[in-house]
């Protein structure tokens, strides 16, 4: 625990460790559920976890958690030491889960900055009873042993307390760098005025050079090297800027938010470097007496009366610091060097890096496809070589950053275990969860977006998919239901599927419902593919209605699930076989930001479509074109009929080719539907960086974003799903 690598705040660390402990705890419990008892390793592990949580929460002064953890620890202490037989295992598991839930709930409160005010007295009492029960009947001997247990306790380490600071969250660290214009007089005094202004809002403040008041030579240092300040405050950067600007002569101010660690490093640095500005004469003896200061130092400086007092203090401080400088130095850097093999990085920084790479890819395209290169007769062979190298490096860079953001799905999947346990217990069903491919890695951003939908899908499977035990027995299925949670990589996408061996979706009933809701339009029921039918359950109104009528089937928040998945550019694929179960697969692209795209033009406007959505390009003759009486157009290619969208008509672009044989037809696919798009011609292929459509443009059907092309022009990115639906 006492690891020097830990740089998070005390509270973060407590939350992290406790959450991990609880997770392990739950996993042990779920593992042991079928065994019906804990083996020795489990008992020891649980004892250890509860002991750790108890200790940590006592240090953090969360008495409620500590007491509860202590009680559970007692129970396991007894189990470990006395090894009682026939303990009611299921009951114990319930208690453990209740404890875990309580602690988790408290952690949530703590995370949100609220007080941990939950009361666990009932639970403690129940645990007490439970403990008595398993001890019961064992006679006095056991009682004694139990009495001996508390005697064990004192052997533990002395108690420690950590008093969390008030509103620690709102306190920020900033590093400030001020430069003064070279002709500024007494820059040191100006700097001090800034410091003085900041003192009002500072919880802690350090500056360099630190001898600005005591040493007139520091003016030159400030002018030459600038003035550095590190400040801890609850105010924001704007307020700091405002305060600094009260002093004159400032040329430039740079304010950067930094971490506590950097703040600390600044202190170290400040201490080590400060003497430099004083050069030779390190110790200025007389300064200790404030009186001397007034005459020894330049009198003009001391015109402000209020400043005077503070000045004295600062002088003293500077004096002190100077004197002891060498002592507290060395330590920290030495220690750092050996430990850091991992660093934790703020996700915002990673996002920024990702954005920058996007910009780099655009800039690269602008250079490599620059119109200036198109001068006839130019020898570009060397340029081409260099360009190839650049392209290679930038794509490697892109991959490296992607890899950095990748996280295994393990944690997300493990949470599902508990959900299956809880839900199935409540519903009185016997269900087993099998997890496959939990080491599959996906972007951190995607993990955040899929854990809710995944939970929905799992719940749905348990609740609606798997039949009740009796029902299963009566139709000759294995009584124990099974849900398989699987993740795998599949051609630039990650597929996460939840399949159950329950009753599956009933096509007829869904169709009937859709009919009643007027969703079928004028198509006949037989025209709908199974997938289209199943997709009805993802419509918002559809699901709730079914729920209200207690209609058996799925649909609890399926629209929310789909919306969540769509947010990360994914789709939900539903497959089912009546009576045999169903499979819900989330197909999510591995990356959201940079994709390969094919560019085509329509009357001077460029459109881009992701390369993996393009099935083929084909030139079509007039006779392959079928025009329906209502004006709808279709093209017949190798006996398959595709609906045709003319982009110039669709987006009302004037000009563009009209004759189908003059332009080119591009077949685009979305899930298992295909559409033919008619454009003037192909313009090229390029890595495109997806940028959202600016919010002042209202949502346009069939357009999912925009990007910048190599020649600097803007191109719209086609959203095939939208196009298909529109059609």
């Amino acid at each position: 625990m006492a690891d020097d690598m830990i740089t998070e705040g005390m509270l973060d660390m407590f939350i992290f460790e406790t959450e991990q402990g609880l997770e392990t705890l739950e996993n042990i419990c779920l593992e042991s559920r079928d065994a019906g008892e804990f083996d020795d390793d489990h008992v020891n592990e649980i004892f250890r976890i509860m002991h750790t949580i108890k200790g940590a929460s006592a240090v953090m002064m969360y008495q409620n958690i500590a007491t509860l953890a202590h009680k559970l620890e007692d129970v396991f202490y007894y189990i470990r030491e006395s090894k009682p037989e026939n303990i009611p295992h299921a009951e114990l598991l319930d208690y453990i889960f209740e404890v875990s839930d309580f602690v988790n709930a408290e952690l949530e409160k703590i995370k949100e900055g609220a007080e941990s005010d939950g009361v666990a007295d009932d639970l403690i009492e129940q645990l007490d009873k439970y403990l008595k029960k398993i001890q019961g009947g064992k006679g006095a001997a056991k009682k004694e042993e139990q009495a001996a247990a508390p005697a064990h306790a004192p052997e533990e380490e002395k108690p420690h307390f950590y008093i969390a600071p008030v509103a620690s969250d709102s306190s920020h660290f900033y590093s400030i760098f001020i430069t003064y214009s070279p002709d500024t007089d007494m820059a040191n005094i100006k700097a001090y005025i800034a410091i003085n202004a900041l003192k009002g809002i500072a919880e802690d403040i350090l500056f360099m050079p630190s001898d600005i008041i005591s040493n007139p030579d520091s003016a030159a240092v400030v002018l030459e090297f600038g003035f550095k300040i590190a400040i801890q405050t609850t105010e924001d950067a704007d307020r700091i800027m405002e305060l600094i600007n009260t002093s004159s002569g400032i040329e430039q101010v740079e304010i950067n938010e930094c971490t506590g660690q950097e703040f600390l490093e600044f202190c170290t640095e400040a201490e080590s470097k400060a003497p430099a500005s004083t050069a030779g004469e390190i110790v200025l003896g007389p300064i200790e007496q404030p009186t001397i200061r007034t005459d020894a130092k330049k009198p003009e400086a001391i015109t402000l009366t209020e400043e005077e007092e503070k000045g004295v203090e600062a002088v003293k401080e500077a004096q002190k610091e100077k004197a002891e400088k060498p002592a507290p130095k060395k330590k920290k850097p030495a220690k750092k060097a050996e430990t850091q093999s991992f660093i934790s990085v703020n996700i915002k920084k990673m996002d920024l890096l990702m954005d920058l790479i996007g910009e780099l890819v655009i800039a690269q395209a602008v250079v490599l496809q620059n119109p200036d290169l198109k001068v006839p007769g130019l020898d570009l062979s060397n340029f081409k070589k260099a360009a190839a190298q650049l392209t290679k490096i930038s794509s490697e860079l892109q991959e490296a950053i992607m890899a950095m953001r990748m996280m295994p799905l393990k944690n997300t999947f493990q949470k599902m275990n508990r959900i299956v346990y809880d839900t199935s217990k409540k519903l009185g069903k016997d269900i087993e969860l099998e997890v496959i491919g939990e080491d599959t890695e996906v972007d951190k951003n995607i993990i955040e977006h899929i854990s809710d939908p995944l939970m929905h899908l799992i719940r749905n499977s348990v609740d609606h998919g798997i039949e009740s035990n009796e029902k299963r027995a009566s139709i000759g299925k294995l009584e124990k239901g099974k849900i398989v949670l699987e993740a795998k990589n599949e051609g630039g996408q990650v597929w996460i599927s939840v399949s159950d061996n329950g009753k599956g979706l009933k096509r007829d009933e869904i169709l009937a419902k859709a009919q009643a809701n007027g969703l079928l339009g004028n198509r006949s029921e037989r025209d709908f593919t199974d997938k289209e039918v199943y997709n009805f359950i993802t419509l918002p109104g559809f699901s709730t209605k079914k729920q209200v009528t207690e209609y058996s089937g799925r649909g609890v928040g399926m629209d929310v699930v789909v919306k969540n998945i769509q947010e990360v550019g994914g789709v939900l694929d539903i497959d089912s076989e009546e009576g045999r179960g169903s499979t819900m697969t989330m197909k999510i692209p591995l990356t959201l930001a940079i994709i390969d795209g094919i560019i085509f033009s329509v009357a001077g406007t460029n459109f881009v479509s992701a390369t993996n959505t393009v099935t083929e390009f084909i030139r079509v003759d007039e006779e392959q074109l079928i025009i329906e009486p209502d004006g709808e157009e279709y093209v017949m290619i190798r006996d398959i009929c595709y609906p045709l969208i003319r982009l110039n008509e669709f987006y009302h672009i004037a000009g563009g080719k009209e004759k189908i044989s003059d332009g080119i037809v591009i077949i685009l696919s979305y899930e298992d539907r295909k559409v033919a798009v008619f454009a003037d011609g192909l313009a090229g292929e390029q890595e495109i960086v997806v940028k959202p459509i600016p919010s002042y443009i209202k949502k346009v059907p069939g357009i999912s974003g925009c990007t910048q092309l190599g020649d600097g022009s803007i191109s719209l990115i086609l959203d095939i799903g939208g196009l298909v639906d529109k059609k």
Partner: protein
Amino acid sequence: MRTLIAEDDFASRKFMLKFLSKYGECDPTVDGMEAVDAYLMALEAEMPYDLVCLDIMMPKLDGYQALKAIRDIEQERNIPEDKQAKIIMTTALNEGANVNKAFNLGCVAYAGKPIDQAKFENVLRKLELI
């Protein structure tokens, strides 16, 4: 309760002094060196401090060093554990590593700044100082 406060920042020192004075005599010092001196003087006078509050970032001797010095002195003089001063670190450095380091050096509590008075008093009660 006799309290020794080591704190280089004037405002914080004044705050601590005011806050803890209601529980008894408080002596302020401005750096770690002075704090250790004051601690020694009190020992000589056989009026040891019950509570020592140490800032970490201080000139001359930082809080860790002062803490270690005090514990070393106690060990050297064979002062029994229950007679040893209770030491609370008061600092803005809240990283886990710092906190653990301080605990390992033998402080009993670690208070992050700005100090939560209610919790601080709570700890004092637990330590049976008030």
